[in-house]
């Protein structure tokens, strides 16, 4: 129906619209009271920048519009990158921002029932102490949900930074570590690579054997030219460089089986946050790897959460939470409506220090999270209750 919004029947007119407007106004007031500057990012964004950060898969998730004579533009699928780009342009101090507006997502298959347009309201904090900023963003989302009448959401937390720290600490060839790091957010490929690096080297194909022999004798260009005409921008130097890398990889010692198991175990840790922290510390000690800074960040975050009234030690923790969302590389969390599996998480967010590097530049501390106000209103059942208040405004 024309008046419907995502998760909210009739949400574009009348009392339901007024209730939504009142709810988002209260949430934004909270974010601004916490020192966040309100920003209005553009809806349309240059495709190249987003594709560089998110990869081609984004085309399956985001709508593209064509501007004749210019490149394609994406309708923003979220606010993370648009707000970061605004920050780079405006450099406001303190570097904390809040936003409210629609995002658009393609939902291929059409029958999966997910909305193609929905609202997000959120905060992004750049710089500042990581543990404190993580805890503050978490607490702001908790408070935003309370504004919508959801005071006891189902929470799950994680910390991809700990598993990444384990990966950085175990012994392996730098090229292999870089490949695993690059595929950290693609669990199937990550596992396949880890098994490959930890197992016996596969028997090389005849062509691979010839290539490795050529690599040690400087004969790669001749071998390549014999195989076909040199076409395209990837040239003989690229082929020779990879042949060299393959030769180095063939000579590398396998990743120790216990180290591979340690990475798996760190990613499999689940339980209350304090027990999870203890378990991770135990795993690291038994495995002989030093991940003290990551564990200390975890512990300091729990302290910072406790100071904000969160029962931090009891928070459900799953190490691999949000692992398939490329760019999260530290604290992550989701808050869902109890008993409403039909609704998406009402709030979600996390740390993505690495994204600045993907945009070109040094990594910079960044944490953000968003609420889905329409889903929150549907879960909190305040669509009718708050209508009189809204009408009075």
């Amino acid at each position, binding site marked *: 129906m024309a008046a419907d919004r995502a998760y909210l029947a009739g949400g574009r007119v009348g009392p339901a619209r007024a209730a939504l407007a009142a709810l988002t106004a209260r949430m934004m007031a909270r974010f601004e009271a916490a020192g966040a500057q309100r920003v209005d990012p553009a809806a349309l964004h240059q495709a190249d920048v987003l594709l560089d950060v998110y990869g081609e898969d984004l085309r*399956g998730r985001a709508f593209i519009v064509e501007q004749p004579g210019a490149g394609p533009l994406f309708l923003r699928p979220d606010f993370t990158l648009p707000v970061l780009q605004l920050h780079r342009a405006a450099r406001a101090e303190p570097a904390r921002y809040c936003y409210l507006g629609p995002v658009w997502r393609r939902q291929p298959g059409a029958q999966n029932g997910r909305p193609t347009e929905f609202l997000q309201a959120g905060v992004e904090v750049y710089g500042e102490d990581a543990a404190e900023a993580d805890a503050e963003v978490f607490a702001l989302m908790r408070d935003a949900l309370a504004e919508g009448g959801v005071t006891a959401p189902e929470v799950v937390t994680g910390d991809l930074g700990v598993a990444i720290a384990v990966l950085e600490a175990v012994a392996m060839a730098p090229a292999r570590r870089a490949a695993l790091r690059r595929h950290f957010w693609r669990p199937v490929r990550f596992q396949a690579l880890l098994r490959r690096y930890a197992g016996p080297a596969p028997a090389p194909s005849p062509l691979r054997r010839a290539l490795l022999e050529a690599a040690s004798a400087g004969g790669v260009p001749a071998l*390549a030219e014999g195989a076909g*005409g*040199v076409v395209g921008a990837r040239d003989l130097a690229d082929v020779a460089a990879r042949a060299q*890398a393959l030769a180095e990889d063939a000579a590398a010692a396998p990743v120790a089986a216990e180290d591979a198991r340690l990475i798996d175990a760190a990613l499999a840790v689940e339980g209350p946050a304090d027990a999870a922290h203890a378990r991770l510390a135990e795993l690291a000690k038994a495995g002989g790897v030093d991940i003290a800074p990551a564990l200390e960040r975890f512990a300091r975050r729990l302290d910072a959460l406790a100071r904000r009234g969160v029962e931090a030690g009891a928070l459900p923790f799953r190490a691999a939470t949000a692992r398939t969302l490329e760019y999260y590389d530290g604290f992550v969390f989701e808050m869902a409506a109890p008993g409403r599996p039909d609704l998406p998480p009402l709030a979600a967010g996390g740390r993505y220090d690495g994204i600045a590097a993907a945009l070109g530049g040094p990594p910079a501390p960044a944490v953000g999270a968003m609420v889905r106000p329409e889903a929150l209103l549907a879960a909190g059942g305040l669509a009718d209750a708050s209508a009189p208040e809204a009408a009075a405004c």
Partner: protein
Amino acid sequence: MLTLGLPSKGRLQQDAVDRFAAAGVRVERSPEGREYAGHVSGLPDAGLALLSAGEIPRALAEGAIHVGVTGEDLIREHIPDAETRIALPLRLGFGRADLIVAVPAFWVDVETMHDLDEAAAAFRARHGRPMRVATKYHALTRRFFAQAGVADYRLVDSQGATEATPKNRAAELIVDITSSGETLRANHLRVLEDGLILRSEAMLCVSRAAPWGPAARRALAELGHRLGFDGEGIALGG
């Protein structure tokens, strides 16, 4: 009335017409010549629509035609969750072509999708931009590359002469259909060992979304009887 959608020209149309004729269903274009219409004899209550092969998948998904003939590659590319909207009761055995990933043959370091992923990472580091893949099969390429865990690539749309794009420096590699492989070889390209995305051939397709009245259902049952598939066993919509 049942509307049968066939490709408006080419080898695929001729093979389909021959196959129907062998089963006693004659498809004839209007004698007026240029009009994209015609009639079907030998099947009760059936009409003909001639469409571009690429438009047949969408016409089936939307229910504009009841039955159509087109390549599986086009169905999988254009219709997500194809089976929920289109039944595919019969492979027709013609129009065979493989959708494949091909790279310049002189890339002696790239034999598999795993190699391609490593080469793509190195290419991006050295050239400051992702490797480009020329294709008209965007959805199938994205899905296949995601399953293989290949990142760091960029799709470039190519609606024809795709094999020439590496040579023309419009792309570094391609995803395209091939039947004999001769065009690939002529353009200095080689198929990756695990680079087969889809073994495609012409399919008889039945729209679940078309308006299925009693006459259309009877015509479908008869068509099934003639061609050798169970037309009555297909779950249809309204």
